């Protein structure tokens, strides 16, 4: 029954993380902000809403994608060291696969509606995926070659790879779609992007998937660079990582897609290679 516990706990935590982001960002902007459990309320409310079947769209595919994107992300949680349900050598390959998988679900959703906003959102996400996944894969494969499994990552790698940590923070920001990399979800340009036509259950599930993505990416950063020995330390450290994310969200404006791409490749890739070459030599 550990699986079900982990399932619900990770969903709960991802909502709380999202709530923390909203609350802390609001406090930073001198507002009171919603309560921390606000995303849970939103989720339950969305479940009680009417569902729209948009004409000329593959709606069953959308429902299916909304569920499997959540499942795909929760599978990553199963690989975390202290959860340890999935536990094998070279699980980094699976990690890369699952990280892309959830994004792919979002992209497919955008393509399954006959509307230009989701379409542009999806094309932007594809470009962004190319931009952030290349550095992300290099980092993950580098860890994979060094440590074989997530289970064997040593503590406090941040001291030996500070530059990788910095790049990973920005990649996290891009992966979860927070400013300055909320390019594919830019409200002001393309409405609600791939979720423009979703409502009710599907919207709730996709919002859950987004929150889960934040939880997973923050936890991965914590595991890779701090790997705290016990669970309380883990949460403290991941809250610290989350705080940096919120800080970036609040103080930065959004990049344009070409600027975002340039930033991720031209600025971050050299940083990553500096740290990697240090080890090889």
């Amino acid at each position, binding site marked *: 029954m550990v699986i079900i516990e982990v399932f619900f706990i990770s969903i709960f935590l991802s909502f709380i993380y999202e709530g923390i982001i*909203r609350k802390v960002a*609001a406090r930073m*902007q*001198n*507002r*009171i*902000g*919603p*309560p921390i459990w*606000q995303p*849970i*309320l*939103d989720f*339950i*409310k969305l*479940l*009680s*809403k*009417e*569902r*729209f079947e948009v004409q000329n769209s593959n709606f069953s595919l959308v429902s299916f994608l909304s569920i499997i994107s959540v499942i795909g992300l929760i599978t990553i949680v199963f690989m975390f060291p202290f959860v340890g349900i999935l536990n094998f050598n070279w699980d980094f390959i699976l990690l890369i696969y699952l990280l892309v998988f959830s994004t792919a679900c979002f992209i497919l959703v955008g393509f399954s509606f006959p509307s230009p906003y989701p379409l542009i959102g999806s094309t932007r996400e594809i470009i962004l995926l190319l931009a952030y996944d290349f550095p992300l894969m290099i980092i993950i494969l580098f860890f994979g070659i060094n440590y074989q499994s997530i289970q064997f990552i040593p503590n406090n790698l941040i001291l030996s790879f500070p530059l990788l940590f910095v790049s990973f923070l920005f990649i996290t920001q891009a992966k979860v779609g927070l400013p300055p990399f909320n390019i594919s979800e830019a*409200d002001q340009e393309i*409405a*609600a992007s791939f*979720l*423009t*036509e*979703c*409502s*009710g*259950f599907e*919207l709730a599930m996709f919002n859950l998937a987004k929150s889960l993505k934040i939880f997973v990416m923050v936890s991965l950063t914590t595991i890779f660079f701090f790997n705290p020995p016990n669970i309380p330390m883990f949460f403290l450290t991941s809250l610290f990582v989350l705080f940096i994310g919120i800080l970036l969200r609040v103080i930065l404006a959004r990049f344009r897609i070409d600027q975002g791409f340039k930033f991720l490749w031209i600025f971050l890739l050299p940083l990553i290679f500096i740290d990697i070459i240090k080890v090889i030599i």
Partner: protein
Amino acid sequence: MFHVVIGCAGDNLIIDKIKKYCQKKSPWLFHYCAGGCNGCDIEILAAMSPKYDFERFGCLLKSSPRHADIFLVTGTVTKKTKKRLLNLYDQIPEPKVVIAIGSCGISTGIFQKAYSVAGPLDKILPVDVYVPGCPPKPEAMIDGIIKGVEILTKKGNK
């Protein structure tokens, strides 16, 4: 869909109470200017700002009508926006609440005799809450939204 996911029959009291509470606490708004003078629109933006901050009640200004619960309409409805307004209204999933903001939306106000006005909002859409004023203050708008939420929970639990 709600009951399918939570796995409960229709008349479970606790589940219904949770649902009601959540509907009350997370109203998502969609705003459309149907031909006002902008005064109300900027006051809605002011209601988002740190001084008033309607996000503390869980309100979010959404960019797609399909995400919304509450439809904020400002301004007299002009002939040109009428069709568009109905189109947007249809896209908001049930349960939904329409709030008419400002004197223009309520009674067409000062533009009563203008030739391009299609009439007050309640002749076009079923309006649930009226927020009078030219323009109403952000406090009044937040009050209107909270009143709208009450109606929303009633509509959602028929």
